[in-house]
């Protein structure tokens, strides 16, 4: 199993998950996550040689339906849900240039 979690690891996953973590919170998260990851290490005891990973219990794959248009929400419904919208569009801060980088 991998080495114990560092503060840098916490900052890295916070950045990947788009979460802002203060210095004080980073240490708290590090300690809590390290405790959980330490507990999880017991999985190393299980003999899983030759066992296929099971991501899902459902046997079925690719449920298909006829490609027929159905009822859809009116654009006004979607617009009403959006934090900021105008003229049938959802508004967000500038995507390209200095404001981007997401």
């Amino acid at each position: 199993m991998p080495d114990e979690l560092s503060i840098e690891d916490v900052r890295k996953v916070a950045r990947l998950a788009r979460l802002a973590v203060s210095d004080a919170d980073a240490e708290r998260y590090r300690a809590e996550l390290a405790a959980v990851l330490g507990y999880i290490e017991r999985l190393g005891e299980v003999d899983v040689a030759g066992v296929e990973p099971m991501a899902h219990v459902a046997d079925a794959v690719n449920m298909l339906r006829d490609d027929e248009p159905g009822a859809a929400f009116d654009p006004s419904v979607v617009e009403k849900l959006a934090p900021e919208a105008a003229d049938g569009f959802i508004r967000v801060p500038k995507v390209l240039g200095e404001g981007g980088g997401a």
Partner: protein
Amino acid sequence: MRSAGEIANAVRAGEVSAESVVRESLDSIAARDGELRAFLQVFETDAVARAKAIDAMVAKGDDPGPLAGVPVAIKDNICTVLGRTTCASRMLEHYESPYDATAVTRLLDAGAVIVGKTNLDEFAMGSSCEHSAFGPTRNPWDAERVPGGSSGGSAAAVAAGMVPVALGSDTGGSVRQPAGLCGVVGVKPTYGRVSRYGLVAFASSLDQIGVFARTNADAALVLRVISGADERDATSARRDDTACDAGLGRDAAGLTLGVPSFAHDDAVSAETRAVFDATCEALRAAGVELVDVELPHASHGVAAYYIVAPAEASSNLARYDGVRYGRRAEGVNSLDEMYTRTRSEGFGHEVQRRIMLGTHVLSSGYHDAYYVNALRVRRRIKQDYDAVFARGIDAVLTPTSPSPAFGVGEKLDDPMALYVEDLFTVGANLAGLPAVSVPAGFADPKRQEGVGEGEDPSPRPSPPGGEGGRLPVGVHLVGHAWGEAALLGAASVVERVCGVSGRVAPA
């Protein structure tokens, strides 16, 4: 309050008005929910109007359906057009769903009346209902204790007699554990039995909508209504064996239950062990055959779960970015700042921790060691159940959770103490199997801080059906895939032998 079945029969026959039933439910909420805080929203006006419409149908000679006039509560991570769907999160505090979840549509089509939305741990992440952004729910049997979670509001609402039945969701035990701690029946169906359309996703390969009731008969009645294929959920099963009430009232003789050795795990408290042992004895005396079985990987379930569930959650919760709906941080200058500030302000500590855990176990360099390895253990856990059921075992019997309800705040700062609450319940989610918690007895544990040197720590358990304590203890049955009828049949035997179902926690 009467059972859901009795209410529906009386309303359909015109003997009782839906309006009087719904007003009784609303009065009960008004009387008790100031203390318990099971509900985040109550729909007085809408509920009464709908009840009157049902009474009008009956007066015209129409049949409103098998849940005619039955007041129901809905966990607030299940979408309803009525009111808001908040997931007990600041992120969705003002979110109004433009659609009903399929399970909700089916309840309404069957004549049920939604009286309110219930509290939960934020985004269903927790086992105590303390991680709600809007404050904790209290256990109706002891308001100083938690109701369990994450569906703690629905469990408390049913236990306190505010509604006869309620919907919850169960990803690792979030219906069954609070059902056990609140002394009600809680059932998680086979994965795919109930459509997940409109259930806000937490861990999609584990999530199922489940039912709270005070009896197995009521649980079966509601489960039957909400079960079945739905073209809006590709993982909902195309099956028509939805008569999950077919096994109710069966004989004890001929029932074979497997008791795995991990039912006696060290984590099990003395008082829970005492009720569990007494239940086993009473079942044997009634003619049930109890067989020792092995689930060799069951004790690794919690560890596998705390990789798989956060991994899926970190992906599912990526959608909360402030763009299309829900919260958006104010005064941001860039898209990236908008994402980061929205998520940091909108999610609570527990949710952020699980997102980070999930992100970590999926990240480059750790993915195989953590995530793929957990999926292999997951298959081992499923194979264990397959092997047990192949031996002719009808269901696997354990306690529902290691101990009775703990004090509010007692486990708040120790994630692992809380995660072990899921010891007996996560296996059914990982393996996709149906499972139910049934009230078995009452215990009277000492408070954690009260157990000190020189004190007698011995519990005072009640025999099944007895009155030895004031906190409910549940037992847990895991059944065969798609075997809800047989599972609830077995649960009805436990219910009859223990004799403590159907009670309302006194005010």
